[in-house]
């Protein structure tokens, strides 16, 4: 909170000439510009960009309030993380407490188990929901800065942090339209079938060392199995909309996702071979330790094998989430917006909740498979709790996802298939052989 921060210099030059152009602007006594505080007033009476405000934004009480709010949000997120991360130490005690309560009431012991599972499921569900709010705002800011824009600025005060919340309220209030040509039931069911597997697939994902909702022995297979189900929902949405563009989008999505699932799964096989387990926590633990006490033994740093696997998994994950270099199923310039053209309001937003959920899932998987999970990059940094490292690594991976989306142009449908079948898949097979050689040596 330094007072002398020369905050956003980038947006300053553009509004200035625009404001100066309309000739000798009559110098009206400008009211002190109010950022977002009463948006209606700002729009009707003062039609200018608050440049002088940006010269020293800390002078504005609203800006300070906004910064405080952002700090509160980040603090809240950290506290939630701490609650999840640090409470896990007392997990057994909480479970014992629930068990004792159930026993004192004379209920069957199954209710305690049920309540415990429900609690964990609720926490995981909230990770996905809050991730939606956070990731959309972050993506809008990143995309704006990549394109030399500013992105959301007004709602909430500090860099428009509340934009997604207001968007969510707007989407809830919008009319829910089902087209006449649609297959009513399938149309209504599709968003649910897209979003439900994301929540289920998060069960074995570890949010730190020994920190997951369910320690499943076949975790990796489980995650891939459930992440694949969403395609059915996308195909259903495309077909049931009764619209040619949606149908084409659905078909493209089916072809793309089913194809890219193969290199995605095969690129992880070297990791499984090196770790010798399908359990996500065991994979993270297999990367503990350092080479020469300096370089962490993460699978990313295994020569050649690790890097190839990482790149293939990253590329295939971007393709699985239908994001831009691979957004053929919803290519705006060709298909209006593909399989979700005929959706509106909350049903539409559920598709995006699922998309961002998959981005987060892929980020956590990348962090677990290749970046050592909750292990610190330097042994000296071990005092920082593992969930902070996990979250930091996952968010770094997520940044790569967002960055990619706004940097690369879209591939053509045939290029997309060629790239998958003739490049990624053979290399993922070759990488399995390389990993075998590595293990033999």
């Amino acid at each position, binding site marked *: 909170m330094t007072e002398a921060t020369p905050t956003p210099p980038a947006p300053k030059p553009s509004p200035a000439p625009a404001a100066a152009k309309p000739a000798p602007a009559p110098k009206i006594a400008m009211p002190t510009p109010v950022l977002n505080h009463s948006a209606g007033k700002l729009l009707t009476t003062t039609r200018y960009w608050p440049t002088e405000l940006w010269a020293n934004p800390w002078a504005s009480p609203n800006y300070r309030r906004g910064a405080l709010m952002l700090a509160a949000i980040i603090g809240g997120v950290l506290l939630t993380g701490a609650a999840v991360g640090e409470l896990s130490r007392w997990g057994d005690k909480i479970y014992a407490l629930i068990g004792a309560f159930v026993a004192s009431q004379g209920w069957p012991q*199954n209710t305690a188990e049920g309540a415990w599972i429900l609690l964990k499921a609720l926490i995981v569900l909230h990770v996905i929901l809050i991730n939606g709010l956070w990731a959309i705002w972050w993506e809008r800011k990143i995309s704006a800065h990549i394109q030399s824009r500013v992105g959301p600025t007004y709602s909430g005060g500090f860099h428009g942090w509340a934009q997604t919340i207001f968007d969510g309220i707007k989407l809830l209030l919008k009319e829910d339209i089902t087209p006449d040509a649609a*297959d009513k039931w*399938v149309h209504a069911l599709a968003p649910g079938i897209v979003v439900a597997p994301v929540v289920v697939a998060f069960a074995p994902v570890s949010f730190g060392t020994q920190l997951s909702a369910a320690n*499943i*022995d*076949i975790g990796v*297979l*489980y995650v*891939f*199995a*459930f992440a*694949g*189900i969403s*395609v*059915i929902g996308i*195909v*259903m949405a*495309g*077909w049931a909309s009764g619209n040619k563009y949606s*149908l084409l989008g*659905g*078909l493209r999505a*089916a*072809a793309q996702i*089913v194809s890219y*699932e193969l290199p995605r799964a095969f690129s992880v096989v070297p990791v499984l071979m090196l770790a010798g387990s*399908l359990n996500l926590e065991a994979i993270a633990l297999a990367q503990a330790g350092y080479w020469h006490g300096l370089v962490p033994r993460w699978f990313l740093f295994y020569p050649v094998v690790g890097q190839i696997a990482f790149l293939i998994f990253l590329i295939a994950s971007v393709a699985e989430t239908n994001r831009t270099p691979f957004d053929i199923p919803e290519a705006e310039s060709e298909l209006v917006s593909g399989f979700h053209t005929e959706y509106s309001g909350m049903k539409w937003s559920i598709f995006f909740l699922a998309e961002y959920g998959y981005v987060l899932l892929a980020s956590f998987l990348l962090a677990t498979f290749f970046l050592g999970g909750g292990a610190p990059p330097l042994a000296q940094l071990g005092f920082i709790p593992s969930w902070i490292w996990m979250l930091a690594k996952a968010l770094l991976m997520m940044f790569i996802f967002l960055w990619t989306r706004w940097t690369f142009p879209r591939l053509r449908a045939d290029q997309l298939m060629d790239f998958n079948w003739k490049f990624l898949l053979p290399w993922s097979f070759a990488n399995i052989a390389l990993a075998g050689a590595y293990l033999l040596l």
Partner: protein
Amino acid sequence: MIEQLVFYSLAAVAVLSALGVVTMKNSVHSALMLGLALAAVAGVFALLGADFLFAGQVLIYVSGIAVLIMFVVMLLGRTYDLHLRQVNNQWLAGLLICGITFSGLWRVIGLFSESRAHSAPVPGTRLLGRLLMSDYALPFELISLILMASLLGAVYFSRSERSQSSSTNP
């Protein structure tokens, strides 16, 4: 008690959706029902403690085969083709075969319904992999050979058809 409840509800879903596959008029609905039936069978696997089989069933059948079937149905069918007649003229013979098969199965179920597994199932992906690579290596390789042959066959037929059609209408 809960186990039985879960089993019977999964079984009901599997049977009802399997019935839906053959009785639904719209072939896309049939394909969706097929996905549901396969998922219910996966649930039964999970209930029995066969976790690898469960994940494999979901991974390959629900999110692979069912999607491909939907893909083909949507790609080939025009909207007026989607509504098919469900019964042909041989329905009496079909019903008889079904009845005989069912009564045979019923007898077999009656024979084995009292026998129990010797031990509780343990999650054994490692064991499964070891067995596939040692005791069952030959059947495993034979199956992969058959799959490879069918794959090559599919490629060959689709390719020859395309080259013919391209030569006939230039």
